[in-house]
């Protein structure tokens, strides 16, 4: 039995996740972004506290109208704040998912992997990366060091590129965003080249 799902099942699952995330939450998925937000949860909670007073976009627009008059005085267009039209969810795409939602998303991702592996009878706790990794990279301190440096580089690249395999590869490519197509081509292309080079090394 293959260690992986059939390609079509994986494709269906990933498509459902990418489309479902946008449909349900009104924003694109990005695991690295979720991790980054979770790591700075104190700032996120502080921001949520300041936004708590505005339950709707209309309330925010009314407050903005007042703030505009305060900031620009006579230069601000005159308006009656009570007649400000509701923007009908204009802010929804830009609003952040509550930090609790991000934590839940990450937890469910780990939980989902656990359930999938358990259902296939493939779940096992292991402290090594497998025979192939040991052959190509090494074991012990060398293997751990390579993993650590690799993780640092992946994190750096993810932040520089503004996304990872989920944000660019799944969500961005599905939306045919140019930056995501370029980013995905770069990191998958690099991965293929590096793995080929390592396979050919003695």
């Amino acid at each position, binding site marked *: 039995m293959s260690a992986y799902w059939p390609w079509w099942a994986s494709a269906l699952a990933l498509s459902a996740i990418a489309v479902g995330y946008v449909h349900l939450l009104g924003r694109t998925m990005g695991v690295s972004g979720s991790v980054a937000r979770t790591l700075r949860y104190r700032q996120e909670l502080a921001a949520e506290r300041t936004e708590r007073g505005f339950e709707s976009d209309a309330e925010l627009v009314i407050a*903005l109208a007042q703030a505009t008059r305060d*900031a620009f005085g006579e230069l601000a267009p005159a308006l009656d704040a009570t007649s400000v039209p509701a923007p009908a969810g204009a802010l929804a795409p830009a609003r952040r998912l509550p930090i609790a939602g991000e934590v839940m998303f990450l937890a469910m991702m780990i939980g989902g992997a656990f359930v999938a592996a358990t259902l296939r009878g493939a779940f096992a706790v292991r402290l090594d990366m497998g025979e192939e990794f040991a052959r190509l990279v090494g074991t012990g301190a060398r293997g751990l060091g390579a993993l650590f440096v690799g993780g640092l580089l992946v994190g750096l690249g993810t932040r520089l590129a503004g996304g990872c395999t989920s944000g660019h590869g799944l969500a961005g490519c599905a939306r045919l965003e140019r930056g995501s197509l370029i980013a995905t081509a770069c990191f998958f292309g690099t991965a293929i080249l590096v793995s080929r080079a390592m396979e050919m090394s003695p």
Partner: protein
Amino acid sequence: MTCPHTKGCALFPLFSQESFLAIWKSTYCEADYAQCSRYIASAKGEVVAATLLPNGKHLTNRPKTR
């Protein structure tokens, strides 16, 4: 030059959609965005609350009457 962070800005859609808020857009987003508190915070990788205004003040949930 337009602010490079408009895509992720919570307020830019409103500045673009509501004519009475366009003065923020013309003053900051499309002009002096380097002075925008939202841009400065975003460029530092900080969390930018939807209540933070480009001039550094925060919106209050009790609109004043005049």
